[in-house]
């Protein structure tokens, strides 16, 4: 257990001693801020419109601002994942430091978990920047905080499963760019898979859209905690980490 923490700390340090962490956080803050501004602007104009029409029915901040913003955040997250995971193993393989890790009295799984936790923490730090915007809503209104918390849990789970896939791809190459592009392609694919359900309702399209990570995030964004979705995310995380472990083992037999 302590080995996982040692490796995780080392990874966190290397994220924050390079510009990548700050760059990603700044970029994410900018984009999520833009989406927040758009959502709030729409919310305000709609609110004014409905008041002028005389309906006066109160609009829900959670429904009109928080949910669309977090849906967008989950998609931007897909673009962040490859940049977080691509260096994890590829860089160690390129510089030869992997020899240090593998010849230390540490289990492969401890190395993998340490690195994956660090990536998850990094992703969490990136998500934190979007909380600043939503925090403003609490200053001026009374949104419900519970669905928001569940949505963030969903974001972390979704991130976790894509990060585990990214970690796996990083073990397959010495080249960070290859690892990054591969991860990006898979993230993109897992996102667009749910679009098929828009045109079709056959069993195949249901299966395909079930595989999309974004489909499973939707209930979270509404504040619904469904075991089905949690199990999906957790099993993908396990799959990713399992593949990483196998890939690390195969490195030794092949290299």
């Amino acid at each position, binding site marked *: 257990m302590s*080995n996982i923490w040692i490796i995780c700390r080392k990874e966190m340090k*290397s994220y924050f001693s390079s510009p990548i962490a700050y760059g990603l956080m700044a970029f994410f803050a900018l984009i999520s801020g833009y989406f927040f501004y758009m959502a709030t602007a729409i919310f305000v104009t709609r609110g004014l419109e409905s008041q002028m029409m005389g309906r006066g029915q109160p609009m829900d901040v959670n429904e009109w601002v928080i949910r669309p913003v977090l849906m967008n955040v989950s998609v931007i997250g897909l673009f962040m994942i490859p940049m977080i995971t691509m260096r994890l193993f590829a860089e160690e393989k390129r510089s030869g430091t992997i020899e240090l890790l593998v010849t230390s009295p540490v289990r492969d799984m401890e190395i993998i978990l340490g690195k994956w936790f660090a990536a998850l923490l990094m992703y969490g730090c990136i998500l934190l920047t979007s909380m600043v915007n939503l925090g403003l809503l609490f200053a001026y209104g009374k949104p419900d905080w519970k669905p928001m918390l569940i949505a963030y849990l969903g974001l972390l789970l979704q991130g976790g499963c894509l990060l585990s896939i990214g970690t796996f791809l990083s073990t397959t190459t010495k080249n960070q760019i290859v690892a990054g592009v591969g991860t990006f392609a898979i993230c993109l694919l897992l996102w667009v898979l749910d679009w098929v359900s828009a045109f079709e309702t056959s069993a195949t399209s249901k299966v395909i859209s079930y595989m999309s990570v974004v489909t499973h995030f939707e209930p979270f964004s509404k504040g619904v905690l469904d075991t089905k979705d949690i199990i999906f995310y957790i099993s993908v995380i396990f799959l990713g980490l399992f593949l990483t472990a196998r890939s690390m083992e195969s490195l030794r037999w092949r290299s």
Partner: protein
Amino acid sequence: MIKVEGLTKRYARTVAVDNVSFEVEKGQIVGFLGPNGAGKTTTMRVLTCFLPPTGGQAEVAGFNVTADPMEVKKRIGYLPETPPLYPEMEVLEYLTFVGRLKGISKADVPARVKEVAERCSCADVGNKLIAKLSKGYRQRVGLAQAIIHNPDVLILDEPTAGLDPKQIIETRELIKSLAGDHTIILSTHILPEVEQTCEKVIIINKGKIVAIDTVNNLTSRLRGSEAVAVEISARNGDLNSTQVQQRLEQGPGGSRVVARSAKENHFRFEVESLQGHHIRPEIARGVVDSGWNLHELHPVAFSLEEVFLELTSAEAVAQSKGGAQ
């Protein structure tokens, strides 16, 4: 301390290490000598549990590398060819990380880090980024990293490669000072290095062991035939190179005379003796008798290339004889 039996490592198409067996006793320094691609690094990687062997057994401190890798890893310090350093870390921070990784408790780490940093004389750059270090310092930090957990066995892959002469001497001294407490295997392709630091030599070529012997035995065996460099000039009058060559060839025991250079009546030659002959007195007498000046007369050390030519060609001859039968 280290026991290797019939070790074989096969990659997809090539056999990197082929049926290698040797033993290393506690406290010994053993030199692993061979040209590039001979299988030195592969053997070391098997011993450090980085690569699993395809066949055969390897034991470190009584633990098998395939059955008990965790126990082996605890007892081994390893410095790969390129020191495994993280450029974004500071030296002390890096050593602390490695110390913790190798299983030193949090309380003991600062003292150990300080100790090894001083021992490897890299304490003065403790707060510098590794990315900013010179090659020599990187090698020292790499060595500090290998000994931080006070391992029984130290495996050093070309520890002096790419260092300047002063650093090479310092590193050799450091390695020598580590012997006794640690059993050391170091790989190199420089023969004098082995002569100066090691007690025992394992020569490996194309994945096979060519010779295992003590340094003294091996060098005397190889020096059975002697090579001597001579520099001669004319005392008065002119002299030409063929004249000198003929005179040197007449001397008893000489097998081959090679002209190295000729410059303003200074001639350099290399004379190789037959097995078991000492030709230096003969040469000196011959030169003086001819009335020339003798500027230099010294034995030429065998370089590794010659050792290899010697050992591998002998093997090739033996093989072709065996094939003819």
